[in-house]
């Protein structure tokens, strides 16, 4: 059922690294707060991919349970984050990170 072939094994880790790096890049350069949040979701998904892969390879469902928890917490985090962004948008009329400059020095 699970062919833990070496090629696939390494591919997963590299795909996850690519996803994580892309998320990191987006987190650093994007100015739209919502897109920044999406980039964080990408990083979390990279983590999920590794966990699924390792879990399926080793035969312990522990990694899959970790994935369930990550998904739950990510949903909560996205909800709270979007709530905060909405509040800021109401006050500022923009979601551009550069506009949030009340707290500088």
């Amino acid at each position, binding site marked *: 059922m699970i062919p833990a072939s070496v090629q696939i094994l390494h591919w997963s*880790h590299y795909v*996850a690294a690519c996803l*994580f790096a892309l*998320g990191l890049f987006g*987190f650093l350069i994007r100015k739209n*707060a919502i897109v*920044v*949040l999406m980039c*964080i979701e990408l*990083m*979390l998904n*990279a*983590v999920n991919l*590794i*966990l699924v*892969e*390792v879990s399926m390879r*080793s035969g*312990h469902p*522990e*990694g899959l*349970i*970790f994935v369930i*928890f*990550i998904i739950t*917490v990510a949903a*909560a*985090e996205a909800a*709270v*984050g979007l709530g*905060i*962004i909405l*509040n*800021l948008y109401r*006050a*500022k009329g923009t979601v551009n*990170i550069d506009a*949030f400059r*009340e*707290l*500088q*020095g």
Partner: protein
Amino acid sequence: MNGEIVQNLKLLSPELVLVFFLVVLFTVDSIWEQTRKNFVPLALVFAACLLGTIATCWVSKLAPTVFFSGLVANDSFSAFFRYVFLFSCAAGTYLAFGSKELEKQNRMEFSLLIVCVTFGMCLMAISTHLLMLYIGIETVSILSFVMAGFKSEDLRASEASFKYFIFGAFASALMLYGFSLIYGLTGSLQYGEIAQYVQANLGNMPYLLPLSLILVYSGLAYKISAFPMHFWTPDVYEGSPTPVASFFSVGPKAAGFAAILRFFLDILSYDAASGSWKAIGGEQLVSVVAIISAITMTVGNLSAIGQNSVKRMLAYSSIAHVGYMLMGILTLDTFGLGAILFYIIAYCAMNFGAFWVVSIVADLKGSDRLDAFRGLGWSMPVLGVTMVIFLASLAGIPMFSGFIGKMLIFGAIVKTPGLLWLAVLGVLNSVVSLYYYAKILRELWLEGREPGNPSELSIYHGVALVGLAIPTVVLGLWFAPVIHFVERSIATIL
């Protein structure tokens, strides 16, 4: 099976007490609307903290165990941190209810959030499993984001909560990546099993393990605001309501230290015989931590000098204190690690006190700038004198608890070969910190001596200030039993 679960739940009674009061608060809030404005929630939080302390006392007497199939541990290390968290929860709520900044907000919601954050912090301290650590950290983080923006009509508070959120989500993503790499390397999520696997395969994991440890560290460094992840601290502390900021500067920080100590000491398997980390070249890791600690305290202290807002200054100074505390990890013995715990106790009282004074002044003058403190020592002597005690202790002047904490840590560092430079840097940093603490004291006592309009310090605040000043002084003079206590606490995880 059932008997086992009951037995295990007994060991979790401090957390269960918090959950019980969470439900009580939730119920009371929904059926009795008056409680949103009066002091019933404070009484409930105090009851939760008191019962939690009693429960902690009770479970700490039991033999140390790792239970729930290796998810959590009960030992005197967790007991120590539970005391700290329960104290900071009670003090934070007390401060919040006396502050004008949160006067208009729903107190019930605040109490619910702070009790749940305390619950999460307890989880961080007791977990011996990556999954539990993750849930604990996220419980603390996500609810903290909301607490930072609790004064929701204030734009600065919303912005603080946004900054806190963005960096928090980023840090937890980095940490999770580290977790997943560790899981991929060792095939386990439990600290003990990871340590066993790492010990057995020392040569096989040259780069990936240090890399994943660095990733995990950066997630935890965010919680304690240590060097690479410290930049959010001043903004968030400045923007969030002062009572919340004072809670952040104590509670989650101590929780971060608990998690770091347990994680790194367990996984890297401190070896008492040779006095070094066995797993990956002890020497390299020690120099990395030394550099992190040096940068953290220097950045904190140097940035604090130029600040005009006292709240921001204290935020930077709290970064510097994290730098001092990190030094203790380097020594890798009961003495140095116990010194961290001692420092946490001392820091808890003195930092809370200093933030408390800022909160009172901010309520009174509507500003936390340096000049708002002008002459307040003469018009409010209790506030002035206690602030002298807190700041002197923060600066590390003898006779106060901060001095003993620093002395223990520097003393431990001096004894460690090759780290004398760090101790010297630490002392130099303390001197720098003395300069900016003295700036506040000068405003308090030396400027504007005329007792313009004498303002009364309410008994509510006076009791708290004196209550925090007493341990700061007493710990500076009568510290031997406490040192004994912290060394016993740390000994259980070594």
